[in-house]
């Protein structure tokens, strides 16, 4: 059963209306608050549309580090749980000093940095895509 317009469509038109028809008329004293609302709703919109895609990017980055294949079939909570599990494992290894030295035989700091950058980029794509531009 699909309700039409669905939640995403309702959110998109609400945000568009807020930005185009209300925001220009908000008095200066309330403008910061209004911009915060638009910002928050923008995050919600991107998260609803792109959370799984971000999850797959993160899983791909982590799988690369661990020499495993990313499982493309995962979605929703299963995907997030898998990402969370691998991130937790990585945190423990980092804290234990496993990446302190950039070795040639083992996975070194360069690979770690690439993985961390991909994870941050995937999360920024939702929270603040503008920050991705240097």
């Amino acid at each position, binding site marked *: 059963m699909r309700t039409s317009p669905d939640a995403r469509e309702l959110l998109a038109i609400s945000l568009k209306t807020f930005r185009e028809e209300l925001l220009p008329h908000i008095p200066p*004293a309330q403008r910061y*608050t209004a911009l*915060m*609302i638009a*910002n*928050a709703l923008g*995050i919600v919109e991107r998260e609803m549309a792109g959370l799984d895609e971000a999850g797959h990017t993160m899983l791909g980055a982590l799988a690369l580090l661990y020499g495993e294949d990313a499982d493309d079939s995962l979605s929703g909570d299963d995907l997030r749980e898998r990402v*969370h599990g691998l*991130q*937790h494992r*990585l*945190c*423990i290894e*980092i*804290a234990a*000093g496993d*990446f*302190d*030295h*950039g070795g040639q035989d083992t996975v070194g*700091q360069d690979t*770690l*940095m690439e*993985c*961390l*950058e991909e*994870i*941050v*980029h995937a*999360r*920024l794509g939702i*929270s*603040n895509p503008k*920050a*991705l531009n240097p």
Partner: protein
Amino acid sequence: MGAQTSAMIDDTSRPRLEAWLAEATGATRVTVADEGRLGGGAISLNLAVTLDVDGGPQSGRHACVLRAQSAAGIQASISKGQEFAVLRAAFDAGVAAPEPIAACADPAVLGAEFYVMRRATGVGAGHKVVKSDQPQRDLARELGRQLGRLHRAGPDTPGLGDLPVPNPCPALDAVHAYKAWMGGVATCDPVLAWGLRWLEVNAPPPGEVVLCHRDFRTGNYLVKDGQLTAILDWEFAGFSDPMEDLGWFCARSWRFGRNDREAGGLADREDFYAGYEETSGRKVDHQSVAYWEASAYVRWAAIAILQGRRHTSGEEPSLELALTGRMLPEIELDLLRHLKAIGTLTTEAGVG
């Protein structure tokens, strides 16, 4: 600013406040006019007040700020009594801190600890302060001079006995604090885990500790006609490695889009450093500043987590706090960029 008055000063508490102020300032009578909440207080509550003082050494009319502990302070901040002592030490050292007037530790007066200081005027908002076609070299240099003066105060300075002294190493003390503030996030966010590990491995050895502001940055000082009028927000102050304040000031997080001007979005680091060396009596240690800049990103991330938690815990529902919690990836990107830029430090100074 709206004329919204605060719940803190009402018909019941006003006479108590006025009587207390009269005693604290040696006046025969003080009348308080409440002009509403001032912005910029994510952690403290700032009220604009005007005092009419009759008699005593402070006789006259004074535009002031009454600064009180908010309902839910955060772990990183010191008490209002300690903050007042820091303000006094800074003011006495010739720093452009607002003049402290009186502090009240008795919760019976207003329901929370608070102090009163003179109100400074000027523009504080970071995005406005950095707006300038030309680099603001004089302002950057003056801020360096101010910081240098502050750093002449230390654990031996009278009145600062209440502030904890880092033991034994300020850099590692800081890492432990960040971990504690982050809680579980430190074991499920690998970027922060890497930041924390990097800070542990590369920590500079203990050296001289001085009175640090610990939130000395664009957005926390006021400027009028291009001149500095006051340095604000002293609630994170404490003793630490002097280079901590320099790293924090120069972090990308406080350049408000002017990334080409590394000293707070104002000018090059050279101007800021030169001012600092003029008054502090010490040289800027570039490698140490780079370390503390890395520490700054991890600290800002930890504070963002704390701020987000104030909202999600239901303690203090606020859109601003909620969005601060969502700034984490941005702060982490800045951390990774910085570590990449100074990456050689790890292999040179690393343990093993």
